């Protein structure tokens, strides 16, 4: 039988070992071509040019040692089969490499042409199997996404019809409705809304799973969001006679987060908490700072329900998980809520976890990054460890011309924000995250390392680009103002950190002064965060 040539990349710096392996390869039955290099960097360079059938890898090379060697190689070329050549005293490390995903290892000194050939052949076969499994999984995921997207569309159509007719009758548009009948209709409407929420979750979870979920972080005061969540769930809690309270840390800084998404997480957690708390129990929402982790705000939702057992605790954030003990609590949804929460928190670079003792209630906690102007600004207002010289603050205000705004306002201002981001220099200007909850008028701030005169070029560019947005002038008015950042005192002996803080302080003051009064209280705590 005519066998195909096996192309081997041998990465081995000891000439004696390399020759021995080469010899064993030539002795084998099947045709082999060997490319031998003695440094990992040369190996990676070779892999970048062409893909061999497999790699034979010594772990101790002049430019890389031990575990680092296979980690770097596999990160560079995850799909190439690797067989490690280990020393006799190194089998533990070699086993570690196998756990990390290399196909096999051979102990130097015990290499025969037969076991080498066999190891190589199996390595190639196994890698090929693994690869086709990966492809199949990917296709399956894609199919599942398409299927769910289709199903959710098909489910919405009859649901819309039910929704329309129920609201039609409830609103009295089909004749007078007796109070009893109205109550029954409200029950139907509640179930319709639950079904609607499930369909939304289904699509949302699919999106999270395939990495298509997006967030738009803003500078947000958490207190307002907590209050919104509580206001939305107050009726349900009252109905169940469950107390619902908020505890806010007075020092609470602003956070950098997508307010709509965070509200989604809060509603989900509070809704669950209310659901699993018996009458006369209480649900508490808290936002606080933890001294050991000053860059995060901790938001927790505690209940006085019956708690969660250890097995459930480990799985509760997984997709489709249902606590077996709560199945009797029939309308508990699809088991997607906490999975979606986890994905949203993860997109914010936060963490989410639950602590609970059976019978003692549970506490769900998640973290969000604090909004720190200093951290955001430092990279752009300094250059080679020195503060740049001139700064201006540009304020771009978009005010919709009608209420509600024409078209999709969120889409419009996000498009505008993208345009503004493209109009600045990434290394010396910064478009700050939008402020407050997204609502009607949107204000963006740009801190630019430039003087007042040259900033005119930037603002002209921004104005021209924005006015090209389709229908821009029919949708909103644009107001751009430029203010120089006046650093009152700048003693030269200040450390760079102090100089940055000085700029941050000035910029914060200017933003606060130019903002509406309703943001003032939130902004004051924001200063502490900087």
């Amino acid at each position, binding site marked *: 039988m005519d066998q195909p040539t096996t192309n081997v990349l041998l990465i081995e710096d000891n000439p004696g070992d390399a020759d021995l392996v080469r010899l064993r390869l030539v002795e084998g039955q099947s045709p082999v071509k060997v490319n031998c290099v003695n440094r990992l960097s040369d190996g990676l360079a070779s892999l970048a040019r062409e893909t061999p059938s497999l790699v034979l890898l010594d772990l101790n090379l002049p430019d890389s040692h031990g575990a680092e060697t296979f980690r770097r190689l596999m990160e560079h070329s995850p799909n190439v089969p690797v067989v490690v050549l280990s020393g006799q005293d190194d089998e533990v490390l070699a086993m570690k490499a196998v756990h990390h995903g290399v196909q096999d290892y051979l102990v130097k000194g015990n290499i025969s042409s037969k076991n080498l050939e066999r190891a190589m052949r199996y390595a190639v076969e196994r890698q090929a199997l693994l690869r086709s499994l990966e492809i199949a999984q990917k296709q399956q995921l894609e199919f599942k996404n398409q299927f769910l*997207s289709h199903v*959710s*569309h*098909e489910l*919405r*159509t009859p*649901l*819309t*019809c039910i*929704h*329309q*007719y129920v*609201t*039609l009758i409830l*609103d009295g*548009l*089909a004749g007078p409705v007796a109070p009893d009948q109205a109550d029954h209709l409200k029950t139907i409407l509640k179930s*319709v809304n639950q079904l*609607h929420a499930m369909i939304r979750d289904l*699509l949302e979870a699919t*999106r999270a799973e395939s990495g*298509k979920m997006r967030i738009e972080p803003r500078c947000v005061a958490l207190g307002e969001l907590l209050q919104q969540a509580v206001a939305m769930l107050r009726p349900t809690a009252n109905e169940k006679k469950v107390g619902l309270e908020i505890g806010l840390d007075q020092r609470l800084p602003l956070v950098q987060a997508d307010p709509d998404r965070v509200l989604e997480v809060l509603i989900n957690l509070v809704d669950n908490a209310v659901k699993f708390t018996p009458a006369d129990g209480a649900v508490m929402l808290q936002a606080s700072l933890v001294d050991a982790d000053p860059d995060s705000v901790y938001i927790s939702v505690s209940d006085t329900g019956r708690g969660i057992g250890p097995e459930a605790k480990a799985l509760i954030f997984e997709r489709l998980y249902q606590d077996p003990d709560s199945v009797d609590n029939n309308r508990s949804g699809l088991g997607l809520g906490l999975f979606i929460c986890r994905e949203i928190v993860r997109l914010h670079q936060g963490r989410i976890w639950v602590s609970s003792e059976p019978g003692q209630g549970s506490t769900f906690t998640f973290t969000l990054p604090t909004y720190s102007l200093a951290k955001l600004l430092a990279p752009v207002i300094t250059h080679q460890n020195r503060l740049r010289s001139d700064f201006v603050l540009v304020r771009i205000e978009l*005010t*919709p*011309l*009608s*209420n*509600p*705004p*024409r*078209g*999709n306002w969120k*889409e419009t201002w996000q498009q505008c924000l993208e345009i503004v981001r493209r109009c600045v220099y990434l290394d010396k200007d910064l478009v700050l995250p939008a402020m407050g909850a997204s609502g*009607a*008028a949107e204000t963006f701030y740009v801190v630019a390392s430039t003087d007042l005169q040259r900033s005119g070029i930037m603002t002209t560019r921004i104005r021209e680009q924005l006015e090209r947005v*389709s229908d821009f002038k029919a949708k909103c008015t644009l107001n751009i103002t430029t203010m120089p950042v006046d650093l009152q005192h700048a003693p030269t002996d200040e450390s760079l950190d102090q100089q940055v803080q000085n700029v941050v302080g000035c910029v914060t003051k200017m933003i606060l002064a130019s903002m509406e009064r309703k943001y003032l209280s939130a902004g004051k705590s924001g200063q502490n965060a900087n």
Partner: protein
Amino acid sequence: MAKPKILVVDDDPDLVRAMRLRLRANNYEVTTATDGYSAIASAQKDRPSLIILDLGLPVGDGFVVLERLQNSDVLAGIPVIVLSARDPQNNEERALKAGAAAFFQKPADNDELMNVIRVSIGPEGAQRAAWPS
């Protein structure tokens, strides 16, 4: 003053009937179509003040209808509100680019929908409220 006329386009006749009842109760005159072709024909004949348009339609889907409307001098000015069960993530931007004034996913909130209808029809149908600054 004559009531503003709204053309409702949806291939589900039950939904069309419900929409007609609700819109009439809100003081609009209503005409209807259940496919893309008759939607255009009806728009040409009736010259509605606003069109509520589904995307999945027989004989020319919602996007075809949007394109036809945009390409017509006399019809391009009619505001179109898309009301579809499709995923907004894939369809909202496309619909707005094709000329729609707004996108609602089914089932839509009635109050929000009525509000956007009122604003889109403009001054003769409803007063334009200035956004509080």
